[in-house]
């Protein structure tokens, strides 16, 4: 007679046959195989079996469950037995997930991020801070839940075993990735951050301050980065407002000084209003002649001045207003950059992941913005540190800024000089055919803009009348472990493509499942992104509406990693090693793009192909594949898989060839792409050489590119440049100290040297 049983945690509890019968009945009901009476009969036989084996001793849970499985099958309830086994396996997985979750939280709590690789998965989150650790604990819990409850078993398996990687998996049930914020639309009429209402800004200072707040607010509604596609066009309006006010004020001062009057404020305001009304123009950095004539005429009428004298006063006022506006713009741009490097988002765990796009606004105001944001970037932060955020993206366009004689060519040149020192801006090329096809002169929303590390959104299958960069973004992305498919096909190309096709289908289905969760959210879940009309068409929604239709403007992106290793596994060489492999590489990625295009047409949604950024992923897949296959030379023998379609970082190749070989993939990867070139410091600092690399990218049809070169800084003397073993300014080696007399000497030569005092 069984009296008691032993639970998993070792506790002994009273035996209760009803519990066994209830569990059996649940499996029978789930599989529609048996009823309560059947369940009782099976439970009786379980008890008989246990008594036969254990007599009066206590059986453990596993033994009881084994017996239930056997008896269900003995009685012919095969479907119920299957359901029971599945239930048991799920419970085991849940228990293991719990244990692993607790272990993860233990590591987050107790291990220094410098030692824990897991805590450095995202370099932008400091896992050593309270809020950073809280975020990581939340992420770990969400991932465990999502895998257990939200994924289909086949998707969970593919994810767990490293066939695919579901990015931002911790946010699976919560939100979407990113958005291009049309800053002008947001500002017009003012907006609410979700924590308070802000009036429409009225000066460049407030334009810049609110732009930073907009990025911060939206970052809290989404899990990815935030971008402003029209930074120059947007800020230009603020510059114009500042100039208009400054001109009125400087004109008043000029009149008062010349005529020795006091308090002409009201009179000048009145005069300006009349001039504006008469001409429909306002004072601008380059005011319309008709406007200036009207001001001149009114000055003559009001104060009895000669036309010539009035012109002089206007000219003086204009020059002073210009200087004031330029100064304000410079300070605003510096403030903006400082804000984005110091302000917090997501409960203080991160600075907002932000990008700004600019370069094509040729208005005097837009040009003033571009020049000053570049100068602010060049100056660096308080101690000359290189700014980490925002990512600056310079839009290159023939006829606008690319060639000598183009209105913004001087700014393109300046951008090269700055990037040669500070690594930013990156460059996006509007003339590349896959970007040019959307470009309409005079409509900045048709200029491709880039989000953060590489995301691009332009085409729109859901609504072909809205093929624009503004107010859209990525919904989710999942990446495929391409090298594994190649390894598993053992050189059989046909098998490779069959398996790839199946994997693409699996990923598409998984993203559609995720879309269902996202689509059932409501406007009120995203008070800024949807509530303030940042996302396309969300201004047409009421608070209770679901987001299904408006989200379809976004993209579902299939990513990949390790084309180089894939080619090596299939053909013995990667695409940097000969024309034959170049062709094979383009076939594989072309196949994936075709799949996305077909899926887009089929679903009338935007499936796009992504050259995955792969920060955490570069190590994750290969660690799993090394366990499976060992270290295969040229394939799994390093600590990382090569990023997307890149030529391997260790492969010697010229700038020219690297750009030439990677450019065709930019056309194929319509969800986003980037190519890097690594220059040594001396070449990078040669602006002519730097510009020639950018021009090479343009001419080969690169979509988005940047030039890497070493940027080092000695925090002691403030030197920024290349530092080998010895700092060229203060002469110290890493970790060495310098004597105080030397510090004083250096400070005389370099007054901007950081004051290195206090706690370090």
């Amino acid at each position, binding site marked *: 007679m069984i009296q008691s049983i032993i639970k998993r945690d070792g506790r002994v509890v009273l035996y209760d046959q009803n519990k066994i019968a209830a569990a059996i009945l649940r499996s029978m009901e789930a599989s529609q195989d048996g009823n309560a009476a059947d369940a009782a009969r099976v439970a009786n036989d379980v008890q008989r079996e246990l008594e036969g084996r254990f007599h009066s001793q206590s059986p453990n849970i596993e033994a009881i469950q084994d017996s239930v499985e056997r008896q269900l099958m003995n009685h012919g309830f095969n479907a119920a037995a299957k359901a029971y086994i599945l239930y048991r396996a799920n419970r085991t997985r849940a228990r293991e997930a719990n244990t692993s979750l607790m272990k993860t939280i233990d590591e987050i709590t107790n291990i220094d991020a410098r030692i824990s*690789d897991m805590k*450095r998965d995202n*370099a*932008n989150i400091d896992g050593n801070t309270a809020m950073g650790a809280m975020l990581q604990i939340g992420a770990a819990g969400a991932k465990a839940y999502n895998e257990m409850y939200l994924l289909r078993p086949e998707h969970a398996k593919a994810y767990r075993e490293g066939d695919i990687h579901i990015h931002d998996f911790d946010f699976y049930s919560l939100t979407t990735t990113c958005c291009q914020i049309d800053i002008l639309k947001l500002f017009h009429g003012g907006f609410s951050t979700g924590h308070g209402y802000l009036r429409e800004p009225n000066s460049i200072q407030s334009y810049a301050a609110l732009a930073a707040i907009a990025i911060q607010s939206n970052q809290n509604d989404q899990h990815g980065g935030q971008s402003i596609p029209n930074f120059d066009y947007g800020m230009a309006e603020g510059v114009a407002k500042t100039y208009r006010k400054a001109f009125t004020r400087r004109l008043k001062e000029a009149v008062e000084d010349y005529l020795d009057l006091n308090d002409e404020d009201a009179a000048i305001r009145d005069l300006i209003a009349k001039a504006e009304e008469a001409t429909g123009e306002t004072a601008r950095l380059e005011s319309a002649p008709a406007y200036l004539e009207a001001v001149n005429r009114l000055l003559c009428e009001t104060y009895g001045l000669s036309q010539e004298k009035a012109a002089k006063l206007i000219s003086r006022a204009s020059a002073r207003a210009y200087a004031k506006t330029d100064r304000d713009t410079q300070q605003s741009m510096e403030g903006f950059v400082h804000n984005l490097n110091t302000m917090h988002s997501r409960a203080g765990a991160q600075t907002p*992941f932000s990008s700004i796009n600019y370069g094509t606004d040729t208005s005097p105001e837009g040009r003033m913005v571009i020049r000053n944001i570049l100068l602010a970037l060049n100056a660096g932060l308080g101690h000359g*540190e*290189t700014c*980490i*955020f925002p*990512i600056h993206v310079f839009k290159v366009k023939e006829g606008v800024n690319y060639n000598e004689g183009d209105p913004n060519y001087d700014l393109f040149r300046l951008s090269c000089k700055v990037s040669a020192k500070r*690594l*930013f801006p990156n460059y996006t090329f509007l003339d590349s055919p896959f970007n040019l096809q959307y470009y309409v002169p005079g409509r900045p929303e048709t200029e491709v803009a880039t989000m*953060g590390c*590489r995301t691009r959104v332009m085409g729109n299958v859901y609504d072909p009348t809205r093929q624009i960069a503004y107010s859209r973004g990525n919904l989710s992305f999942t990446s495929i472990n391409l090298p594994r498919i190649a390894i598993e096909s053992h050189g059989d190309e046909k098998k490779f493509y069959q398996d790839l096709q199946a994997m693409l289908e699996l990923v598409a289905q998984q993203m559609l499942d995720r879309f269902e969760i996202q689509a059932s959210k409501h406007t009120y879940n995203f008070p800024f992104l949807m509530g303030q009309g940042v996302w396309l068409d969300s201004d047409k929604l009421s608070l209770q509406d679901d987001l299904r239709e408006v989200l379809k403007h976004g993209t579902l992106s299939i990513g990949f990693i390790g084309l180089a290793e894939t080619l090596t596994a299939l053909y013995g060489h990667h695409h940097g090693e000969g024309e034959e492999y170049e062709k094979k590489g383009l076939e594989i990625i072309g196949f994936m793009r075709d799949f996305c295009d077909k899926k887009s047409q089929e679903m009338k949604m935007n499936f796009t192909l992504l050259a995955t*950024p792969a*920060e*955490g992923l*570069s*190590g994750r897949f290969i660690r799993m594949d090394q366990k499976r296959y060992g270290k295969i030379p040229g394939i799994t023998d*390093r*600590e*990382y898989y090569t*990023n997307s379609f890149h030529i391997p*970082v*260790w*492969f*010697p*190749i*010229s*700038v*020219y060839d*690297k750009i030439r070989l990677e450019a065709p993939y930019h056309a194929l990867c319509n969800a986003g792409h980037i190519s*890097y*070139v*690594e*220059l040594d410091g001396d*070449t990078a600092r040669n602006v002519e*050489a730097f510009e020639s690399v950018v021009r090479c990218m343009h001419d080969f049809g690169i979509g988005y590119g*940047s030039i*890497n070169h070493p*940027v*080092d*800084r*000695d*925090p*002691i003397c403030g030197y920024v440049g290349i*530092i080998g073993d010895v*700092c060229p300014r203060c002469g*110290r080696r890493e*970790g*060495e*100290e*310098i*004597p*105080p007399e030397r510090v004083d000497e250096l400070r005389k030569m370099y007054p901007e040297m950081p004051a*290195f*005092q*206090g*706690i*370090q």
Partner: protein
Amino acid sequence: MTVKSRSEKLGQGVGFERIRRITGYLVGTMDKWNDAKRAEERDRVKHSMNGHA
């Protein structure tokens, strides 16, 4: 953590900052990078300006 006064020698134990780009964005010091990305950065070779094909 130490508190330093101005008269003391500066720089002891202070390394150089080496700013590098990963996945399109910059990271201030490489000790924030994960192991795989550190290895990738270590393996990067410079691309020469000549050798046009």
